[in-house]
């Protein structure tokens, strides 16, 4: 024992030291040393953020120079706080608070003290800056918008937060990053790469030469100029039409999947989120939880699609061979689900596919839907087939477009109903509402536009996308350049398109015809409910319209979804026709329609549920 005492202590201490050292040098070690090393100062050189153009080379977003006052807390020497605050135009308390916050973030890394000086403040401050050790002015560029529309598509940039810093080691405090929309999606393209120069410092913070002889220093890489698929003129026009309305518009070029415009109403001027008023404006927009202007309805609003879904059910019925275009179904001014009658506004009588579509007969499509299910031995099998066809149109799942947000929509599956009703305790009559786009199905405007694009192409679509060119070169991503096939054979599209064209010629949309352009479209009127004081209350129907044109050489496919706009041809139909004409002809001849859309708002309708009084829905006068 006494002989072993010292030896065992030596071994014990040796092991303890090795343990502690491996903890320090192996487990705590982060390869990111250069950033944290107090002996190395990094001086950054920021490249200009890339410009954003529209599909025709028109500028959407550029840059303006801006000046931030930065502070490195460790280097701050005692100063005349009062004078300095005077120059900075802030009060002393705020100055102290900011300085403290910067010190907590890091005593030796730069933090922003004052954002985006005005040009006058900058001029005044610039000369005197040398007096204040530890502070300096950093030039950076601010986004400049050459349009007042497209806020949600373009997105905005803002300072990185703690989460960004933890997630991506590229950024340091005070830097900007794309927050939503294109700015977020193509952050790395637009941002470029900052250049950096490392300086070796001693503990008194004096420069003692370049670190590693400057071998780690890098030059900045410029941000890329990108062109979007957006048509600036169409986008601005659409937003003008949407004033006072809530909903989304998405227009797609069927032959390429390029998104021509993406409009969400209400929206806001993107310039609001730039400059010194930014946080005030942001709070205001963000706090408007009712109109929700920062919520991009064109890709996020999942709603029952309504009658446009009938076109798909017709296609599926043809594909499955359960009827042909001459098969007739009688409409009794409605149809029966069990003993309960559901209404129809087509006028009743014998319907075939053509009149079923253009008169939007509920009974015809309920019948077609039943036939699809009756073909199979079990509703489970029928459901599977129906779901497979539906999903091949890009419904019920993320479409895969190049924007950072999205919603799946919903195409219910047999599992969904098994869960809802219990295993095998449901049949086609339980789910018949799906035949007319009500029931459990949900879709976003961009999904509806893509569905029309697939019909316009007679059976395939290109995944919608927003990026057209990088530095003038067309994108080559096969995700967007290769067609996606639907499960419906090409030959089945003609009768359906014929019906959709008749919607325009003589059907529910004959009120919004465009001279010299043949349009295939479908109106929709979607029932919807809300809860007022816990009571399920029906609101005025949503107005839906989907279309593509021209019928034989489709240039544009469009979906318009106007919340509480009543029947399909009213708001949505008007807006769709105006957009189509504007895009194809470059000008609008439908002056009456245009005037009506520019003047009319739905604000009164949106106020109803919040008025606390009894109200009527679906009012005829407008």
């Amino acid at each position, binding site marked *: 024992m006494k002989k072993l005492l010292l030896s065992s202590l030596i071994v014990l201490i040796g092991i303890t030291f090795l343990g502690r050292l491996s903890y320090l040098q192996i487990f*705590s070690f982060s390869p990111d040393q250069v950033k944290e090393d107090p002996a190395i100062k990094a001086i950054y050189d920021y490249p200009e953020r890339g410009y954003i153009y529209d599909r025709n080379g028109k500028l959407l977003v550029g840059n303006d120079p801006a000046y931030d006052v930065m502070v490195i807390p460790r280097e701050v020497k005692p100063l005349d706080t009062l004078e300095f605050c005077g120059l900075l135009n802030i009060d002393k308390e705020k100055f102290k608070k900011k300085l403290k916050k910067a010190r907590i973030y890091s005593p030796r890394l730069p933090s922003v003290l004052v954002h985006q000086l005005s040009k006058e403040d900058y001029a005044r401050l610039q000369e005197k800056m040398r007096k204040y050790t530890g502070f300096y002015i950093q030039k950076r560029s601010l986004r400049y918008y050459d349009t007042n529309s497209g806020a949600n598509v373009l997105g905005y940039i803002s300072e990185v937060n703690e989460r960004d810093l933890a997630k991506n080691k590229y950024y340091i405090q005070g830097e900007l990053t794309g927050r939503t929309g294109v700015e977020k999606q193509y952050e790395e393209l637009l941002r470029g790469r900052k250049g950096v120069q490392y300086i070796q410092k001693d503990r008194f913070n004096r420069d003692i030469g370049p670190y590693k002889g400057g071998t780690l220093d890098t030059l900045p890489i410029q941000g890329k100029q990108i062109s979007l698929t957006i048509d600036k003129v169409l986008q601005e026009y659409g937003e003008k039409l949407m004033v006072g309305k809530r909903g989304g518009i998405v227009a797609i070029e069927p032959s390429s999947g390029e998104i021509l415009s993406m409009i969400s109403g209400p929206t806001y001027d993107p310039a609001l989120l730039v400059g010194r008023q930014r946080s005030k404006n942001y709070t205001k927009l963000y706090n408007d939880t009712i109109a929700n202007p920062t919520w991009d309805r064109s890709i996020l609003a999942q709603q029952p699609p309504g009658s446009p879904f009938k076109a798909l059910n017709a296609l599926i019925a043809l594909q499955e061979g359960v009827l042909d275009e001459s098969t007739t179904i009688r409409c009794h001014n409605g149809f029966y689900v069990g003993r309960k009658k559901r209404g129809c506004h087509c006028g009743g009588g014998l319907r075939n596919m053509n009149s079923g579509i253009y008169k939007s007969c509920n009974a015809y499509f309920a019948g077609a839907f039943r036939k699809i299910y009756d073909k199979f031995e079990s509703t489970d099998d029928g459901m599977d087939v129906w779901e497979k066809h539906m999903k091949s149109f890009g419904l019920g799942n993320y479409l895969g477009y190049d924007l950072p947000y999205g919603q799946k929509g919903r195409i219910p599956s047999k599992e969904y109903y098994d869960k809802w009703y219990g295993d095998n305790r449901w049949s086609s009559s339980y789910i018949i509402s799906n035949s007319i786009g009500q029931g459990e199905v949900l879709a976003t405007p961009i999904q509806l536009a893509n569905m029309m694009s697939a019909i316009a192409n007679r059976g395939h679509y290109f995944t919608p996308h927003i990026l057209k060119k990088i530095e003038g070169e067309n994108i080559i991503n096969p995700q967007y350049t290769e067609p996606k096939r639907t499960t419906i054979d090409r030959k089945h599209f003609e009768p359906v398109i014929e019906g959709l064209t008749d919607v325009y010629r003589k059907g529910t949309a004959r009120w919004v015809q465009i001279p010299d352009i043949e349009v295939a479209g479908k109106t929709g009127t979607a029932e919807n409910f809300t809860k007022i004081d816990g009571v399920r209350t029906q609101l005025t129907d949503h107005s839906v319209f989907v279309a593509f044109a021209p019928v034989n050489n489709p240039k544009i496919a469009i979906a318009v979804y106007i919340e509480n706009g009543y029947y399909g041809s009213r708001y949505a139909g008007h807006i769709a026709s105006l957009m189509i004409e504007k895009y194809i002809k470059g000008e609008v001849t439908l002056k009456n329609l245009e005037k009506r859309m520019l003047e009319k708002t739905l604000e009164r309708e949106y106020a109803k549920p919040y008025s606390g009084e009894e109200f009527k829905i679906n009012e005829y006068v407008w």
Partner: protein
Amino acid sequence: MGRSLRLTSMSGNSVLKRVDWLSVLFYIAIVFIGWLNIYSSTVTEGESSLFNFNTLHGKQLFFAGASVIAIMLVLALEVNFYERFSSLFYLLSMILLLGLFVFGKTIAGATSWYDLGFFNLQPSELAKVTTALALAKYLSDIQTDIKRRKDQLYALLILFIPAVLIIPQPDPGSALVFFALIFVIFREGLPLYYLGIVLLAILIFVATLKFGTLWLCIGLALLTTVFFLVKRKTFKVPIIPFASVLVITVLFSLSVNFVFNSVFEQRHRDRFGLWLRLEKDPKKLEQIRKTIGYNTYQSEKAIESGGFFGKGFLEGTRTKGDFVPEQHSDYIFSTIGEEWGFIGTATVVLLFTFLLLRLVYLAERQKNPFSRMYGYGVVSILFIHFFINVGMVIGILPTIGIPLPYMSYGGSGLLFFTILLFIFLRLDANRLKEGA
């Protein structure tokens, strides 16, 4: 006796043949690594000559040379010389320590040096050698019986005298080193419960500061209960002594609180607070890192930043920027950590561990008790330096300023640590003669 004297003094290289080369090899490796890192910590841009004695690394190189001469002298001297004159050496070094109060030179607040013109002599370094010799001499005396209280007291007195002389310099770190020689006495038969009591006291001290007296009492009560439940069948616990131990523990714990709060100065409290991670408030922690904990924090960070492979020789950014104070002396280990990484630090830890174990092995194989006891003295002194210095630099012990033997910058240090070691190797080289 006369025969062995002739043999050794007539052919010097026969000593060289018998000296333990493995230990010498470890020694050379440690000195070399030490100098390399002193060079890295002190070299400045545009400096060309290695042998410029105005630079710190140049001076250290000079002392490495002086050490070689000292080694030759130590090995050449007759083996009985050390044992015979050890009391005299001890006396002389105590006089030198006393003389500091009159003639001492003050550097950095401590009056620990004699100014000899070309270099500053630190007699406390010498005293480590002489005390080890004197203790070995006393314990190996035929008249000494370590089981006797009186002899225990004398043995301890040999350690206490230099410690007491060094504390007021002030250099409490160096004074602490002498207490390590108690390991020699343990080896020679001092009952181990002395060690148990000391360890228990340290344990209660730390636990009281870290968890508070209340939790300590609760923990103690739980342990006692478990102890009784397990042992009650086989073993009749003597209640009164057992209870009195508990009472003393609690009283001691209470007195720790008192001493810590009323007798310690703030800087001591801060050091312990830092060591035991008592401060949880991040703001105050930041403050501590800039003031009292600056050295420890910076040296930990420097070591951590080295990673597994290190940044490379002369590439340590924190070393170059001089972020760790005293990096060439007490904190030399952090330079190794930054520039050579885990590979470097592990190598050094292993080198020291192997050297110390080798020396224990050598000590145990001595037939002459004096040699064995001196060998243990050498190991104890080197070990306590290694333990406290590296422990401090890597942040698991409070800040106590003593050098890392053979590595830290310092002329007296290198010279006397070398003499300390090689006297033992000289004794060991003679081991077989003793038997013959």
